[in-house]
């Protein structure tokens, strides 16, 4: 499912214009982004929990140059699906 399909369906279900839905969805994702940037997790009931994690710098191996490298520190976004979605989609195969 693409973003445009989501916007179309939202406008049908909530009885609002597509432009309004697009605006609200965009500002919602921007707010979620800012919350994650502050290292705060977000729980969406029925979907799961989003959170940001910090990875320290670490040694790794570059298979192309065949040399050890030092990877810089970075932050990643983690998603833990809720138990209801896990059980619902457990046997789905595509």
């Amino acid at each position, binding site marked *: 499912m693409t*973003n445009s399909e*989501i916007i179309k*369906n939202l406008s049908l*279900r909530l009885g609002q214009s597509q432009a309004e839905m697009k605006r609200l969805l965009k500002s919602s994702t921007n707010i979620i982004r800012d919350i994650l940037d502050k290292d705060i997790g977000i*729980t*969406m009931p*029925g979907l799961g929990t989003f959170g940001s994690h910090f990875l320290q710098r670490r040694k790794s191996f570059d298979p192309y140059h065949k040399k050890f490298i*030092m990877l810089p520190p970075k932050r990643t*976004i983690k998603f833990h*699906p809720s138990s209801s979605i896990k059980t619902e989609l457990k046997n789905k195969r595509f």
Partner: protein
Amino acid sequence: MNEKITLADLVDKIAEETGASKRLVHDLLIETVNLTREGLNRDGHVNLRGLGRFHLKWHEAKRGRNPQTGELIEIPAHSRVKFKAEADLREYINRKYSHLRSTIIEGEIEPLEPEPTDVPIKPEDTIPQPVSEIPTSIQEEEKKRSARWLWLVIPLLIIILAYLFWPSKKAPETDVKEPVVSEKVVEDVPIQPEEAKQPEEKPVAEEVKMGTPGGQHTVKPGEGLWTISRDFYNQAYLWPNIYRVNLNKIKNPDLLSIGNEVQIPPLQGKPGNLTQKDIEEIAEGFIEVYLVYKKLGKKKALYYLWVVKKWNVTEVIDRFKDRIDETDLELVGKIEGYPRIK
């Protein structure tokens, strides 16, 4: 991540920011979650712009072990919901570390130190013995596997030892050269202030700082025009600008010789806020890249012409009119979209 925000708090924030009613925002979030579930059920993947992509990943049945009892268990085949954050989101939360690059560790490699654990190691007697519960057929299988590995490892070890202790004339030369290289690297690269705070850590690798354009750069192993442009301009896409001033030294922009000195032309503006003169010069570089790729018979040549065409630098195109293929110009004019560069 210690703190968590609930749906109600999120609704309040969004409603405050957008001016929409709380009811509408609440319904929007709930429906978005419902649509995501429906999308995963229908297609197996959902794209949410600004956030990322949800998808299902199938895992085949496998044998595992219960971490509490050590008992062997059969894990049935199942699907898992995965999420990959959008590149923009990843870049946004990593903007503090965007200047850091991975560096090759010179000198002797120390094995990765195991993380210190506070839990004391139990004596062998106290460890639960899950092995006894494993059927003998599995034990035999594992033994066979380890035996196979041994047969592979032993000849490898013999070859490595023979190579190390074989008398050769070249051996002393390499011994002399190695420290010189490592010294040079340490001199060239300044130590980051973060690393200077930790004197107990060995400065195995220093982070490469962004260079300033307008000088010369000696090509190091593993470098290309793309990486040099990234390090000097903080924008890899501007590499044709470097190629433009080094036409005599570089015959194929995809291949650079180690030790070659490359001139880095300065920019009047900054990447993202380039002046007209910069754009014209970079466009000239793109045309030069188009010409050389065309000469080498590479299909990607057209991409560079397309970029120039989209920039509307007619004066530069007119200057190169004799050398640019007219059919290519027409073809490129029909392609829709806009390049991300500039």
